[in-house]
């Protein structure tokens, strides 16, 4: 194969390279450098009720790192049925806030405050219900020890937020 003349090559390639640098990125394809993280959390919005007829039919399953989740929830919340409405696994960013949004109705904002003694991560949590912050907490989240947040009542049951630190 015969290579093009160097001058011709420069005339074609250089403008193309310059254009690539100057051109705006396409929608949804921004070059994203992944920020540093402290780990991952799994967050879920759960509907607890005694009335099976009120379940939404969601088939969401908890991660393997949270075995017997429904059984464990029933130890705290005296309901017969627990249904995962939505779930979200999210990085905990070291420098930026992280949103855990398994639902638009109830979600969390997390700010890392660094690794905790005996494992886990120190967090500042905010539980949001649409445009209202329900609670602000300083917490230590450790793997295998989920946080159950008892939220508002809905229908004849209750909405529960589960937050769990994933094993690294």
């Amino acid at each position: 194969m015969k290579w093009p003349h160097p001058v011709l090559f420069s005339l074609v390639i250089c403008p193309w390279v310059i254009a690539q640098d100057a051109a705006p990125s396409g929608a949804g394809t921004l070059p994203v450098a992944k920020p540093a993280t402290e780990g991952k959390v799994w967050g879920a919005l759960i509907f607890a009720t005694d009335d099976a007829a009120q379940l939404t039919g969601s088939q969401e399953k908890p991660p393997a790192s949270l075995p017997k989740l429904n059984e464990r929830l029933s130890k705290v919340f005296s309901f017969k049925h627990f249904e995962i409405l939505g779930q979200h696994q999210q990085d905990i960013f070291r420098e930026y806030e992280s949103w855990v949004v398994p639902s638009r109705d109830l979600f969390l904002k997390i700010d890392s405050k660094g690794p905790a003694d005996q494992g886990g991560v120190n967090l500042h949590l905010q539980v949001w219900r649409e445009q209202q912050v329900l609670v602000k907490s300083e917490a230590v989240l450790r793997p295998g020890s989920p946080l159950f947040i008892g939220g508002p009542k809905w229908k004849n049951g209750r909405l529960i937020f589960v937050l769990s630190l994933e094993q690294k």
Partner: protein
Amino acid sequence: MKPPSENHELIRWLDGEMNAAERAAFEAQLAQDPALNREALEMQALSEGIRAHLPKEMVVPYGDFFNSQIQVRLAQMEVEEGARSSRFSASTVWQWLRQPWFAVAGAAAIAVISFLTLARDGHQADSQILSSYTPSAQVQARTFHDSDAQATVLMLDGLDAVPADRKVSGLNVHHSQTETEIAATSLYDASGSRLLTISRDSGGNPFFWQTSPRG
């Protein structure tokens, strides 16, 4: 005649420590014993002479050193007392150890301690809620750990119920992408479709973008 320092009755008489009866009996003895009487008068004169020429109060020379020596001695006495107590305790413990029933009880105690130690080593630390603040006065936050559930609980009481006719829907987020430049996080489902993008508005409240903030 006894040496003056050994005649305690004479010293007590000179120092005025005798009661009336003792003083009367001792002075009767002086009247009958010329040698004792002479010694008593000499001692009395010497004592008065000393009192007359010495001030009533004197600064103790090297008082700090004197006090420190007393403190050192007191510390030594405490150590010696402690050693005596230890010897007593050790002997008492040894007597306990020699009891026949102690072997059985000791073995049981060691087994329990070993079990608890192993259980503790195998047990991971739990999550904790260190503090909570609810901006709304009608909302109360309670925190506790439930051992059966192996979970830490943050219970929010006093929240307004979600209307029963409201459809609470969940999102099944497969992955997310955060654009740090604009502090926005986009959530995607398993097929790669964008579910929503969340960032904060000018008031710091969460804001859901219907379309991508990049357009």
